[in-house]
């Protein structure tokens, strides 16, 4: 286990290094930040001076070495727009995204497991067909369209839910949370449903098909023959083996969910990392861009490590420390 974790940490550093170089390569193509922080009537000479002061005129490799040196000390550079260290800005905005992702993950788990199992056990029933039909529709509608339709229906037409933002938040030791106020929860509903709309149908279908396959296997037949309680067969014996591929896919999909926060957060003016990233691109706030990529890269590495560990717990035949 220790060896596994150490190997993962080394991998994480390699991944970070690669991400940082990609980020750096990208940052020179998103535009010149000096245009974004000066009025249009500012003279060329003045702009050149600012560029010089910010070190933007140095050769790219020198800027990169500079960046790496500072990054080794945990300094990811300064956001031009927020006028603060980029890492601070990221940490400030991370709670919003993490809460959103957490709530949508919960929605996905709470809904996909029972619905998937139901559809697998009673594939011919009308409700199963409705679930499957609905999931096809869900999978094929883009997330921003669902978000905009949600806003139109529930905010503009019905006036039940707020249309944007996080509502009232409470600051708990630097973590600005929307979980502690009713207003915060009201604001969470539409964004988290929109975000979960991408993964929910996928998980229902995945659980269903895996479960159906498992239900056909020999050991389940024996269990039936042995006269075990049906719920014990479904939920303990069959479902446990259904979980393996679901966890693997889940780990990968979590990363995609984070990517989709960019769309969801932009539509809802949800002040999280995805929104931050969009704005950083538009403002050529390059330090923030690279910091975001590194942060998300780190989350991906951590999530995949955790998934691998859970995998080993669920299925002891998979050895995570082994050479294989």
């Amino acid at each position, binding site marked *: 286990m220790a060896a596994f974790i150490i190997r993962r940490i080394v991998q994480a550093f390699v991944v970070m290094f690669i991400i940082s170089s990609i980020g750096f390569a990208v940052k020179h193509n998103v*535009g010149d930040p000096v245009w974004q922080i000066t009025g249009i*009537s500012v003279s060329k000479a003045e702009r050149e001076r600012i560029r010089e002061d910010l070190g933007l005129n140095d050769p790219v490799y020198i800027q990169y070495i500079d960046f790496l040196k500072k990054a080794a000390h945990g300094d990811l550079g300064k956001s031009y727009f927020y006028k603060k260290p980029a890492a601070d800005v990221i940490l400030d905005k991370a709670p919003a995204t993490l809460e959103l992702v957490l709530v949508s993950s919960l929605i996905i788990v709470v809904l996909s497991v029972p619905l998937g199992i139901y559809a697998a056990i009673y594939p011919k029933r009308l409700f199963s067909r409705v679930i499957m039909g609905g999931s096809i529709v869900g999978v094929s509608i883009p997330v921003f369209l669902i978000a905009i339709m949600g806003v139109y229906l529930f905010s503009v037409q019905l006036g039940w839910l707020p249309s*944007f*933002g996080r509502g009232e938040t409470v600051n708990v030791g630097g973590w600005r949370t929307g979980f502690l106020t009713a207003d915060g929860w009201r604001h969470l509903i539409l964004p988290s449903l929109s975000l979960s709309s991408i993964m929910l149908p996928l998980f229902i279908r995945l659980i269903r098909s895996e479960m159906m396959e498992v239900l056909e296997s020999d050991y389940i037949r024996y269990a039936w023959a042995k006269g075990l309680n049906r719920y014990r067969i479904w939920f303990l014996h069959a479902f446990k083996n259904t979980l393996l591929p679901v966890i693997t896919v889940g780990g990968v999909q979590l990363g995609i969910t984070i990517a989709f926060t960019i769309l969801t957060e932009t539509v809802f003016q949800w002040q999280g990392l995805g929104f931050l990233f969009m704005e950083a691109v538009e403002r050529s706030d390059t330090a923030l861009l690279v910091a975001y990529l590194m942060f998300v890269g780190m989350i991906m590495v951590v999530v995949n490590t955790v998934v691998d560990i859970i995998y080993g717990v669920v299925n002891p035949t998979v050895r995570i420390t082994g050479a294989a």
Partner: protein
Amino acid sequence: MKKLTCILVALLIVLSLGTAVNAKTLKLAMDADPVSLDPHVQLSGGMLQYSHMVFDPLVRWSKEMTFEPRLAEKWERIDENTVRFYLRKGVVFHSGNPFTARDIVWTVDRLKRSQDFKGLFEPFVGAAVIDDHTVDLITKKPYPLLLNMATYIFAMDSVFYTGTDDQGQPKDAIVKTGYSFANMNESGTGKYRVTERQQGVKNVFTAFADYWDTASPGNVDTIIFTPIKKDATRVAALLSGDVDFIMPVPPQDYDRIAGTDGVKLTTMPGSRVITFQLNQKRRDEFKNPKVRQAIVYAINNEGIAEKIMKGKATAAAQQAPEGYLGYVEALKPRYDVAKAQELMKEAGYPDGFECTMIAPNNRYVNDDKIAEAAVSMLGRINIKVNLKTMPKAQYWDQFDAQTADIQMIGWHPDTEDSANYTEFLLMCPNKETGYGQYNSGNYCNPKVDEIILACQSETDRDKRAAMLQEVERILYNDAAFAPLHWQHLSWAGKDNVNILPIVNVMNFPYFGDLVID
């Protein structure tokens, strides 16, 4: 004694009840929030809108483009280089410090150091204290736009901003990309104090109890300002009642807002002109005035204003809109395809030619659609245009490097004066003086340069107007650029928000004067 206390308490209750009834909260959504609390950090519409909330200028523009006294009660020209301002007495800053002439001198000095404002204040020697409430603004040469510039002098609290902060930095430092005291703290004389600020998330402005302008009808005590970047979300926020006032309003939603009960749309002609520049250095064809004229004749800018801009733009034939000194009424849009084809023949290009064009896709209203329309219109005179559109973050680099033969640019003069358009867009490009900084057409007419330079120290309004009009005529006849339209400004709010009285062509809504029924 006891009785007196009772009466005082009763009075207090009555008074507080009185204000409680009138106090209104405005929930405001714009596309972006101020980048800093320091008004000198960046010269942009957003920062000036902020400045008008938290600070006060010496004078400000009225709706009719005249000057309205603010911190200056009156002013007079002492000699050809000096204007004397008599300042309002009894004004205090948010910090409690009294406002005096020294604050104006300090502010002007700081403006001359600000990277964004120093260009505008270049003609100034500075300001001089005469007494506590009298100050002189002195220019190097007679300067006709002195009062225009006084609208940028938002008094900052010199005592508050002097000294060093707890990080050991001077408090008056102007820092664009990092921490500074002034970026995080404000002390102005304006109606509102910044009481909460989460940058990019939420800004709360609270009315300042000792604000001097008690004659203002404004009854908004708290402004909760949330930036909402996405057009559709901003409109939805208004329609769902989550906010009271939005700006800007995307043209595709004009009809919807106008047709919805409970909200209303307010629009007004603006002064930002959208143009194409035809690069004579890259294309020999564009050196020929006939080709340039043919292009102007080929572009149906009235059609663009009507169809693409949904009527919320005024087709232009010159740079400055009506109301500016240089505006010439006789110059009209000249769409005429037959004439354009004729001109192309005369110029020797009956079969046309092929060229490139770039335009931004998120800078001006419908910018990419306008460019696409223009491309198809130029196709009718056999000019085949290869168009590339890009986000503004990448656009200005490309514009500056003149990577295409035809480039789009919009311009709004910081000085609210006709000459400013020409100085930046059409004077001969000159690295030393900085004139023609955005002249990517490389149009160069010494006569135009001469008149504009002479204008700069012509203080006689009528003579100056004649000169500026002469320039517009020359540019028109030369087809120095292809004019499209002046963008209209738009705001929308709930019915009880009286938008029209507080908005103006500069797009600085004077929220201090806002009345909510």
